[in-house]
């Protein structure tokens, strides 16, 4: 559904997030994580860590030898009877699919959920060319009906309640059913069965490409991936060039990691191994298999040793589930099909810093994503690197670093850089807060700082640490030292917050 966005304004987007979003998202992600934890502990935590390392190594090896593997892949897919196309850009990929559709006089297309097809805005392109396109993944079908964008990599409709969906089916499909997951699923599946039977062309993405046999591996739970490779006359797979893995043994590793980490399943209900997709005699299987290898900026990402590790990602969606930012704002705020931590590092690289330079800042750098990633993508390292780049990129900087912000940062650097200045300003803050202080709390601050106290009171700025500051040379117990340093850190945060609020209120004023 989602086409290419213009500039992603993360902060503006977060303001449009419906209040019930965070609740629905957290319910779903908590469940995903609980299932994952069970699956991982059943597998054995140590074995799991060992396997993650292997997963990382083999993905990195594949990415670093991508040229050789791609060449082998092309040979083998062609030998097995498939047709390989290369798409340097999203526009090329769309054109290739349209050409194939035209050549076969395709009218109806069934589509399996895939990030690559979302990325190139394929459904929209096909629809505007006059074809009817049906998303067949249940979640994706629901968001398509609702005219919304998917909000999670593995659960596109997790932001909607079953009541929402029942209402949607009533208004769009004329099917009245109680808000029951099983019944609603049945309704959608019956509709889609008809679409599958009538479709001329099936489109999917792909989870892995194994070059030595030219095999495309497709992981699904509902069976729609299998439908696409069984019923329509033509089958097209749009797959990023980064999906290559070295060999079948590596495939065993990936198929052990992916389902457990994504949904806590030991294995997804269906794993299709598509090798050339030879038509089975006597049945109406697809007569043609087209594999479109999508670059769309991926090859450029290989240039930098740190950034190239973004390409290791196998789109399990687990980093979204643990991300405190994603859990608060949901997927739509990220402005494109990739959301959460992986979106924060991938979108700016695919769309350009001028378009998505906000996203690397949409993170607390807590590192939970690094720890859960099945292939050990060093997400926080990449986030930091991207932040650096945004600051050095002229077009992105214009947007981000206004002169007021820079001035505030300079003042903060000055204050933090000198103990005396630091102490003075801390004392000044203590004095300034006096009119607003009620006991240990600041209940209401004047504008522009009042947004901080709208939802909850702020703890008052404490003065205890001065005593510690004076006494710090005399050697106290460690515990005391620890408490005192915490207080200093808190003081620093308040100063930073104040300066940024001042800047922000100015920006809003202009």
């Amino acid at each position: 559904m989602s086409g290419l966005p213009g500039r992603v304004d993360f902060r503006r987007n977060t303001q449009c997030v419906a209040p019930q979003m965070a609740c629905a998202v957290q319910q779903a992600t908590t469940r995903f994580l609980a299932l994952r934890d069970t699956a991982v502990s059943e597998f054995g935590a140590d074995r799991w860590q060992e396997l993650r390392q292997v997963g990382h190594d083999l993905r990195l090896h594949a990415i670093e030898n991508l040229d050789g593997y791609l060449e082998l892949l092309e040979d083998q897919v062609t030998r097995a009877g498939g047709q390989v196309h290369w798409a340097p850009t999203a526009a090329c990929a769309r054109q290739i699919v349209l050409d194939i559709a035209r050549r076969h006089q395709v009218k109806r297309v069934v589509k399996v959920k895939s990030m690559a097809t979302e990325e190139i805005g394929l459904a929209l392109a096909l629809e505007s060319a006059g074809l009817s396109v049906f998303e067949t993944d249940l979640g994706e079908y629901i968001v398509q009906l609702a005219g919304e964008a998917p909000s999670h990599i593995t659960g596109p409709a997790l932001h909607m309640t079953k009541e929402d969906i029942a209402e949607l089916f009533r208004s769009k499909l004329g099917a009245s059913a109680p808000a029951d997951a099983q019944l609603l699923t049945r309704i959608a599946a019956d509709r889609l069965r008809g679409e599958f039977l009538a479709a001329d062309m099936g489109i999917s993405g792909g989870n892995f490409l194994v070059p030595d046999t030219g095999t495309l591996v497709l992981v699904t739970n509902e069976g729609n991936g299998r439908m696409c490779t069984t019923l329509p006359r033509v089958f097209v797979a749009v797959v990023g060039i980064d999906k290559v893995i070295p060999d079948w043994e590596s495939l065993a590793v990936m198929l052990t990691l992916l389902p457990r980490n994504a949904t806590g399943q030991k294995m997804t209900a269906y794993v299709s191994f598509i090798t050339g997709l030879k038509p089975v005699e006597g049945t109406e299987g697809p007569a043609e298999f087209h594999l479109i290898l999508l670059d769309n900026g991926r090859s450029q990402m290989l240039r930098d040793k740190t950034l190239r590790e973004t390409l290791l990602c196998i789109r399990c969606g687990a980093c979204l589930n643990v991300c405190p930012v994603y859990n608060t704002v949901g997927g739509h705020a990220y402005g494109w099909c990739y959301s959460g931590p992986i979106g924060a590092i991938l979108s700016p690289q695919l769309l350009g810093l001028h378009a998505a330079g906000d996203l690397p800042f949409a993170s607390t750098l807590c590192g939970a994503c690094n720890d859960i990633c099945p292939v050990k993508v060093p997400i926080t390292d990449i986030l930091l690197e991207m932040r650096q780049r945004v600051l050095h990129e002229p077009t992105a900087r214009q947007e981000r670093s206004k002169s007021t912000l820079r001035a505030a940062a300079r003042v903060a650097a000055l204050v933090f850089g000198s103990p005396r200045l630091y102490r003075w300003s801390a004392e000044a803050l203590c004095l300034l807060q006096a009119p607003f202080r009620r006991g240990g709390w600041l209940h209401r601050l004047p504008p522009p700082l009042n947004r901080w106290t709208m939802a909850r009171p702020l703890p008052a700025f404490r003065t205890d640490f001065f005593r510690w500051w004076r006494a710090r040379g005399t050697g106290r117990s460690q515990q005391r030292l620890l408490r005192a340093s915490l207080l200093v850190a808190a003081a620093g945060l308040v100063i930073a917050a104040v300066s940024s609020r001042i800047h922000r209120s100015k920006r809003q004023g202009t």
Partner: protein
Amino acid sequence: MSDVGKNRDADRDAVMLTVRSALGKRGAPVTPRFPQRMPTDVLANNQVGISTLLLEIVKLGGFGRRVPDTDTLHRLLAELVRCEGVKQAALWSTPELNELSLNRVLHELGVQIISPGAERCQCSTCDLGVTGVDLALAQTGTLFLRTSPERPRWISLLPRIHLAIVEERALRGSLVQALAELRGEDMVAVTGPSRTADIEMTLALGVHGPSVLHVWAIAPKCRSSPSDD
């Protein structure tokens, strides 16, 4: 057509060129090899028994049974047909499956047999699909079904009920081992009935694929002593 071909080559070269220059590669591309660093014990498992497989199937929402002999097999099939109201069925036509004479039993029960090469609309209304299992993984409850003219893909996909007949000798100890044997096959791995949790994370069985999965583990005796004929 030649224009399309030319474009394709140009696109291919463009992608390859950027990939190679980004990776700093020079000279002719070599076929890479991932050094074998697989900790084998990480992927091995010792639970290879049929009972583990059946247990996993049940956990996944399917039905698992042990079938000691041909008579039981035929009786169970008759029961299944009656309970589920099966009107039409389709079967793989592999020699291993033919040997079990399920065709005949179904026919006697008045079930219409759909040929593997039937029109797709007819396939879609079929109630029961009976398949063999090429390899199975006990620990995850996974069944590997190869595709070939005798094993059409649709039989394990379109019917409402999927009955898979598995034998002990199909079991493998690990995914690595199973994939090593099936390397390069056109196939599907089935783990439980078709499922989704897209609506409020509530599990619902049977979306596009079968909602009911029966796995029957037949004893070698079922083969050695065909009941009659």
